[in-house]
């Protein structure tokens, strides 16, 4: 008997099988990553010491139940918050150049406003009836104020904005030296620390 060669397997249905799998994965895929405003909550401490903070170093933003914004007890619209926060943080009203002073601040040096960005604290208060959308809008404006100040400072020191530096830092293909970049970023973060307290 002559040897029979085994018949070729029909691969015509292969495409169908692959399509079936493909459609399954197409339906279950979520490609986009989430993004949002990151915050760190303060830990609960048992015996809290009351730290005395000068009133002029605190910038109170209160969101009431009707979504009205009260900045330092005055009614303000959302669009003006960013500028007001920048003015407060960058005031640099402290005396001298040491602990209290601020030699890089560009503000008015108003003695009734904050000493330096390190001491300036923004306190964001809300009521139970405040809407989440309004709260996030205000948070966003306040974070934008910090980013703006860091951008300006970074332009002065290194000739590129803070946001660009952050983008480069996260970019795997960026050719520069990441260690020095990290140091630069840390310096900016130290000069304009995000001191934003969320009070219940």
């Amino acid at each position, binding site marked *: 008997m002559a040897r029979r060669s085994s018949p070729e397997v029909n*691969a015509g249905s*292969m*495409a169908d099988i*692959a*399509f079936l*799998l*493909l459609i399954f*994965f*197409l339906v*279950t*895929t*979520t*490609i986009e*990553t*989430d*993004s*949002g*405003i*990151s*915050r*760190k*909550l*303060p*830990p*609960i401490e048992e015996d809290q010491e009351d730290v005395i903070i000068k009133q002029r170093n605190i910038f109170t933003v209160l*969101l009431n139940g009707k979504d009205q914004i009260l900045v330092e007890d005055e009614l303000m619209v*959302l669009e003006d918050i960013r500028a007001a926060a920048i003015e407060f943080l960058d005031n640099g009203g402290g005396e001298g150049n040491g602990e209290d002073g601020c030699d890089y601040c560009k503000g008015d040096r108003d003695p009734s406003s904050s000493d330096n960005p390190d001491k300036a604290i923004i306190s964001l208060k*809300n*009521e*139970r*009836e*405040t*809407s*989440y*959308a*309004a*709260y*996030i*809008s205000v*948070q*966003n*404006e306040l*974070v*934008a104020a910090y*980013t703006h100040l860091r951008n300006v400072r970074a332009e002065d020191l290194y000739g590129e904005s803070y946001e660009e530096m952050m983008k480069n830092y996260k970019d795997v293909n960026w050719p520069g030296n990441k260690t020095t970049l990290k140091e630069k970023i840390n310096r900016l973060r130290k000069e304009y620390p995000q001191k934003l307290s*969320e009070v*219940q």
Partner: protein
Amino acid sequence: MSKFNKKNKGEIPAVNTASLPDIVFMLLFFFMVATVMRDNELKINNQLPAADQVEKLDKKDLVMYIYAGKPNSGYQAQYGTEARIQLNDKFSEVSDIPAFIYAERESKREEVRPFLTTALKVDKETNMGIVGDIKQELRKVNALKINYTTRIGDVSLN
């Protein structure tokens, strides 16, 4: 001239589809790699607010999700229209959060536990009261890194 008769006269030959499986497999592999399985079905309205000062939350395995918002129209008869918290697949109370956080921590490898972030996916029409309660519970269990998940867009859209 029988040699030439075999040629089909002017008929277009069928398109060779032998490479079709290859193309489909290529697509298949792309989607297989890019897939993250949707792990919980939302029972609440979840229209996130917009913000532009955002950071990306990569490393999806290090994120715990807490949802809050009004129940969907299908659940309103049972649960009412007041904003509720959803953990995993079910409606929960504020007091269920610590247990949820502990369970999530337990399911992760020990060395990555300090880097866990809690993503708050809250509907934009929710009141801050419930968000404040969630934050208070998170502080109690020392889950301090949070992220208010938002859409990317201008705040005027809120």
